[in-house]
């Protein structure tokens, strides 16, 4: 803040009219001051450890901020630390209210804020906040008092800045919504997906028939592809394309995702899809990530008259680890925080402008890449992903999968050791796609080719 005040004073000094120069300077500093408190508060409300009341205690446990005498006193009062953790983001986010109250109340509020900075300096030994932010309070008082005395602002600096930023945000949000709409229309078009009508709605799916010369489609294996949490069926596009010469390949969206409106369970939906394919070949299911748990719900069922011959579990979610995560409030808080952040990115369209893991770790063909990205940043799919994460059944999942005749666990390098343990639990073969990450094992063409060879080998052996 100190640097901002200095820079703004130098710049505003270019305005030769002294009153106007001072007005511009103070209004600019005021806007940064208001923004700083508001942003700091709102950002904390996006943080799981602030919402759950752990943040301050955790900060005070560090050497950098918890070694001072006052910090040691506070560390022995966890209830106070918890209350302060909750109170801090609330008052920071409420800071703009200072512009609505009478000047006397505003002055009292600013004094309380100074006291807060002094407390932070005492506890965390961060004195520079006292000097920098207290230095900006004069600008806040100037604006509050000008407003109270009904003096019109000399310049429209704040209005221009706030209206312009809001305008950019609105345009970005509209652009993002239109992109999602465009992708939805692509799905309905010739190069898109198909809809299978069932009793209670439709299932969105994609089917590739065997294309290699000499392959009898009637006897070819059927490979069903289960996507991961909150991800589009296009995440299987590289693998699907690589194995389709010798197999029927079916990928689909589970209930609540994409254009699927049916609420059929995983097994019922897969049975409906397999029934629509004219092949007496063996049934193989490949899953990515949490798709493993969906496979587990029907792995031992008869699907359209077929027993599942083999499963290929790519970076599958270990049900024991998911249970641990779901029963730990901090971990579930971090998950919900990440989903809240994704919703924010989706609604504001920020994902179109900032690097994000979905775009960076996947490199599909253009239409598929667009499908994967727009799907991942669709608020409806994010909501469905949260529901699926919280609701998906884990009981007996390992037993169910272990009973399948052939099981192959394919690990990305990112989760190699965890997947090796999962393979051991399932009594499954273990394969590693070297150099891949959780997403790029499907989204990188080279890694997907390695994975495809494994699926092809499993399919060929199942014949």
């Amino acid at each position, binding site marked *: 803040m100190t640097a901002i005040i200095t820079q703004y004073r130098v710049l505003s000094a270019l305005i*030769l009219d002294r009153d106007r120069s001072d007005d511009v300077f103070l209004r600019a500093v005021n806007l940064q001051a208001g923004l700083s408190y508001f942003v700091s508060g*709102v*950002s904390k409300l996006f943080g799981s*450890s*602030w919402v759950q009341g752990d943040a301050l205690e955790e900060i005070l446990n560090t050497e950098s901020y918890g*070694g001072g005498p006052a910090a040691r006193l506070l560390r022995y009062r966890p209830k106070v630390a918890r209350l302060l953790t909750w109170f801090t983001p609330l008052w920071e986010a409420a800071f703009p209210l200072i512009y609505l109250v009478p000047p006397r109340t505003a002055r009292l509020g600013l004094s309380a804020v100074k006291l807060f900075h002094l407390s932070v300096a005492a506890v965390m030994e961060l*004195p520079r906040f006292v000097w920098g932010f207290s230095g900006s309070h004069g600008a806040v008082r100037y604006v509050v008092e000008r407003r109270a005395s009904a003096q019109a602002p000399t310049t429209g600096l704040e209005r221009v800045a706030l209206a312009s930023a809001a305008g950019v945000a609105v345009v970005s949000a509209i652009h993002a919504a239109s992109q999602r709409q465009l992708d939805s229309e692509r799905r309905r078009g010739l190069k898109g997906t198909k809809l299978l009508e069932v009793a209670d709605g439709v299932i969105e799916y994609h089917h590739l028939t065997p294309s290699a010369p000499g392959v009898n489609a009637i006897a070819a294996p059927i490979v069903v592809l289960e996507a991961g949490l909150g991800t589009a069926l296009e995440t299987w596009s590289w693998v699907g394309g690589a194995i389709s010469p010798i197999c029927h390949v079916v990928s689909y969206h589970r209930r609540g995702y994409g254009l699927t409106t049916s609420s059929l369970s995983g097994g019922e939906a897969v049975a409906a899809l397999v029934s629509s394919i004219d092949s007496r070949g063996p049934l193989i299911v490949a899953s990515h990530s949490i798709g493993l748990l969906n496979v587990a719900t029907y792995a031992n069922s008869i699907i359209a008259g077929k027993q599942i011959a083999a499963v290929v579990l790519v970076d599958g979610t270990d049900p024991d680890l998911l249970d641990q995560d779901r029963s730990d409030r901090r971990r579930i808080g971090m998950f919900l925080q990440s989903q809240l*952040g994704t919703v924010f990115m989706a609604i504001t369209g920020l994902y179109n402008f*900032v690097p994000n893991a979905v775009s960076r770790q996947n490199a599909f063909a253009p239409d598929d890449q667009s499908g994967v990205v727009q799907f991942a940043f669709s608020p409806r799919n994010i909501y469905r992903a949260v529901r699926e994460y919280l609701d998906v059944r884990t009981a007996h999942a390992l037993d169910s999968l272990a009973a399948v005749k052939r099981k192959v666990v394919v690990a990305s390098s*990112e989760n190699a050791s965890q997947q090796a343990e999962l393979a051991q639990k399932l009594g499954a073969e273990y394969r590693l796609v070297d150099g891949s990450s959780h997403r790029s094992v499907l989204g990188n063409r080279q890694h997907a080719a390695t994975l495809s060879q494994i699926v092809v080998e499993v399919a060929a052996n199942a014949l």
Partner: protein
Amino acid sequence: MLSRTMSGVAMCALSLHLIASILQNTPDSYNLDLRKFVGGWTLPGWRFFAPNPGVHNVHLLVRTGSGDQSDSSMTDWRDVTPQVGHAWTNVLLNPKSRGPKALFDAMQQLSVMGANYSALEWIFGSLPYELVVDASRGLLPPGNDEAFQFLLLNYFPSGEAGKRMLPVLVSKWHAISPTAAVGASNE
């Protein structure tokens, strides 16, 4: 005329900086870099300790040797993390915290690169890496060795028991003398 031009320049610059500051500080836009729209002017980041505060200590460990990986005479790792003194007077002025804080931030950058699976070549060529190499060189205990290596280790005091220590990065071997070179075995 000159007066109006100067006034216009100031207003435009301030407006642009304020707009960019607002957009840069949305809750989930850490990777957004709008500096190019304001001529490289630094934009403030107001998300103090948010959304997730840093709740770990970063430890800098070093060991020395000849720089040859096969050399068995290299020393054990020694913790050389700069310590910050704590006192009541730090409430008003705490200038000695700035050096360790700069080093902490550089080490934190390397941790983030490691967590994002950045290529090692990219990490080794980055500015934070160079800064930590130089800082380590200045923190080495006296000795007769020619080369050193550093290790970054995150320690989470509030973490689950058994999961508090997380090694982040082991550096290449570097010459202790800033002007000397280390043998090819390092690469």
